[in-house]
């Protein structure tokens, strides 16, 4: 039971949604865009999210559709995670999605909702960062397209009233070899201890993590160490571990020390998979 009330709007166009947001904001209603709504409902019940108005963007055609235009894939932000898997055009993203929540919950959780989530895992961001995907953001002045890596710093950096409309990925990036390894403390579903995503392009490895620090990230320094072929695999990994850009999480899923231990082994598995196991 959510203890507060909110107004519920379902605009049919991007312009209407933006306009609505600013009007509601001027009325002091602290509006929120509503996609799958799973986080707004669950955190709303705990009063950890409180709002007087939600703007459900699921009826906006640009947000709900998937399109392939030449070699470019365009993913609407309100596509459910299940729908993206069903489309099957982006195996790296599908693999990451298959590990998020469970099959039924994935029918409701959306791509945009996961990227913009308050909860810090935001795992779908990992393959999108590594494939140099672009995001289309709706703002008061119209649509803008940006590389995700430029606008994702811990969370998608949106100005007040902006929302994510689409994600764009090139086929050439989708075709690259990838791995996504989710390690949990127990059981087969649920939040990760650490999720590590890796992609190889032009003989260089790119890596991104969720569950390691309090936000998902890709880090070039870590990648530089992992790609330093002058060093042994163990040394490359040791150096990469020195470059982790923020405090390592300590929570119910595991201590920082345990996370480091798991990460080290995962990185070894990744190097083995991409470079062949060392005898």
């Amino acid at each position, binding site marked *: *039971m959510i203890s507060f009330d909110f107004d519920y709007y379902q605009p049919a166009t991007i312009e209407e949604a933006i306009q609505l947001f600013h009007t509601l904001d001027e009325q002091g209603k602290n509006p929120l865009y509503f996609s799958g*709504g799973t986080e707004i409902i669950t955190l709303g019940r705990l009063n950890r999210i409180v709002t007087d108005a939600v703007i459900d963007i699921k009826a906006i055609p640009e947000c709900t559709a998937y399109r392939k235009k030449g070699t470019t894939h365009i993913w609407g932000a309100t596509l459910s995670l299940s729908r993206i898997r069903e489309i099957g055009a982006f195996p790296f993203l599908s693999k990451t999605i298959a590990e998020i929540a469970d099959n039924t919950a994935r029918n409701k959780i959306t791509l945009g909702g996961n990227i913009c989530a308050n909860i810090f895992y935001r795992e779908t961001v990992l393959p999108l960062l590594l494939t140099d995907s672009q995001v289309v953001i709706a703002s008061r002045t119209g649509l803008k397209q940006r590389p995700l890596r430029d606008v994702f710093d811990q969370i998608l950096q949106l100005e007040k009233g902006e929302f994510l409309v689409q994600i764009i990925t090139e086929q050439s990036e989708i075709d690259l070899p990838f791995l996504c390894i989710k390690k949990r403390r127990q059981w087969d579903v649920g939040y990760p201890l650490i999720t590590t995503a890796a992609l190889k392009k032009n003989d260089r490895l790119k890596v991104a993590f969720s569950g390691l620090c309090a936000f998902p990230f890709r880090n070039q320094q870590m990648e530089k160490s992992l790609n330093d072929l002058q060093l042994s695999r163990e040394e490359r990994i040791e150096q990469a571990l020195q470059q982790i850009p923020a405090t390592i999480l300590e929570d119910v899923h595991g201590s920082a020390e345990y996370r480091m231990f798991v990460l080290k082994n995962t990185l070894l598995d990744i190097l083995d998979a991409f470079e062949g196991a060392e005898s």
Partner: protein
Amino acid sequence: MGSHEITLQINGEERSVHARNTDTLLYVLREKLGLTGAKPGCLNGDCGACTIDVDGQPMKSCLMLAVEAMNKKVTTIEGLQNAPIQTQFIEKFAFQCGYCTPGFIMNCHSLIQQHPNATDTVIKDWLESNICRCTGYKEIEEAIKATLRNVQQYRS
């Protein structure tokens, strides 16, 4: 604007109900419409006890606002009349206390509709959406497989 009359298509019937925008579909089904088959468990999307079918997809009704269900076809366990999976749950003793059973049946029913040739991997993937505190999942898996076999026999 906080609450109003909404119309829902439930189990083939049109039902009008006064609901708050913040009411979950689970709450409205149980408390306003007397459809108590969908069970409240975690209310957090984790357990699957509240699973219903919305436009052919299993959905956790605690993760959905009632207003979101307008213009959609909702089926609850009350709307399944002797579906083959229900018979198989009984045949295979796929429950003990039964609290999780309506949610499981709704999920399994959708699985059978969507994947008449479901592999073990698909069955495992789908069953992870529901938690049972009493039984192992073996009997439930057997109920699904027996239903799938019957469906396949019927088709051939």
